């Protein structure tokens, strides 16, 4: 039987709970991409992200009743489970991420950069990107989540708030703090001149 693409997640989950493998596969394919990307960006490790995604869906196979339809969408629920797994992963191996870890789409994933730039410029950009990646991975988790969702994934504040199950104001303030920390880590602030006398506040 063909599954309609617009079929709602809870209906798919219901069928999946009854043993419909096709429904489960559809559910997995619908959600694995965003979850995997979120995990990769949060952990900086494709292996960790793979393990996290597997754990999340394994939970859905074994204990589907943990998801309560009345408490939100399945996507938000899966994000929540993934966040817990990411947190556990960080506690287990806080120094696991490194500059060399670049996931499946590694550092050579931009051939257009090869074509357009000189080797020196390319090396400079690569170094810069590595610094940014390291700075993001060193952010405290709550700030990193906001930065990953709003800056890397370019979600709106409302979407990020739904994914993290918190108010929009919380996202806004976390993002503000995350941006400030990133700028500080990347030593950009040193280029900012001392406050001019004309500056108010």
């Amino acid at each position, binding site marked *: 039987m063909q599954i309609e693409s617009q079929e709602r997640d809870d209906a798919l989950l219901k069928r999946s709970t009854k043993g419909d493998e096709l429904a489960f596969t559809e559910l997995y394919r619908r959600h694995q991409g965003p979850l995997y990307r979120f995990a990769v960006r949060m952990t900086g490790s494709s292996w960790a992200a793979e393990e996290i995604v597997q754990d999340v869906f394994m939970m859905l196979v074994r204990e589907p009743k943990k998801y309560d339809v009345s408490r939100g969408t399945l996507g938000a629920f899966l994000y929540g489970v993934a966040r817990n797994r990411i947190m556990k992963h960080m506690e287990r191996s806080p120094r696991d991420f490194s500059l060399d870890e670049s996931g499946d789409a590694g550092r050579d994933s931009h051939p257009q950069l090869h074509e357009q730039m000189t080797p020196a410029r390319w090396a400079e950009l690569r170094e810069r990107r590595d610094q940014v990646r390291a700075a993001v991975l060193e952010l405290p988790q709550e700030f990193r989540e906001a930065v990953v969702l709003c800056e890397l994934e370019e979600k709106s504040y409302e979407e990020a708030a739904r994914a993290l199950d918190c108010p929009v104001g919380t996202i806004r303030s976390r993002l503000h703090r995350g941006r400030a920390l*990133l700028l500080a880590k990347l030593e950009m602030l040193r280029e*900012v001149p001392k406050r001019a006398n004309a500056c108010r506040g």
Partner: protein
Amino acid sequence: MRAADDFGELEMTCEEFAMTGLDLGTAEDDGLLQKAAREHLRECPHCAALHENWLALRQDLRVLGAETAEVEAPSRVEMRLRQEFRTKHKTVKTQRAAHILGWSLAAAATLFFAITWVNWRLHRDGNMAKTESNVVQTASSQQKSGPASPGSVSGGSQLGEVLVASNGSGDFTLLPDSMPPAPEDATVVRVQMQRAALEALGLTVNEEHAGDWIQVDLLVGDDGLPQAVRLPQTATETTN
């Protein structure tokens, strides 16, 4: 922090710019805030530099995001999950089948024992009825042949079907095909035998008690052959 409406006079502090001004040019940008932030940028070189640095960093973040924009979990994850899914649901089906089978077997066993018990009850009741009818038949025959004297033989060959001694006072049951011997030629011999041995003498025996040992008085003729039998009362009670 002030609300957007409060920026009507296009005044914004550095702190306020840091909170909201970095959203300039994004979907989160608010009209009034945008105006206030742009005005502040023109007047404050510190915030202008901050904004410029932020735009560069945002560009780097977007590039970083684009690196992993299309990545997905490896297909081996899906394979593992599907395998786990199959295993889990196969186990559930097996458990359900075992559950149903168990209950079916229990029900079948209960039914079997119920039928067996009913059959046994019917069989036993049938035997009892048969025995009772034979007793009645024997009693009526005895009444026809008159009152028995001590030491005499009662009944005829038709009584050989069931061995019945009404009491231990000396009533003998004539064996089939035997003639009643003269009292002076007969000898009473008391023997112990299995009830099944009575069958050899032509008498009907209840199979359920065929293996019982009983005491029997045999009336033996002058030719040495038993002509009639008598059960002492204690044995009679267990005959049936």
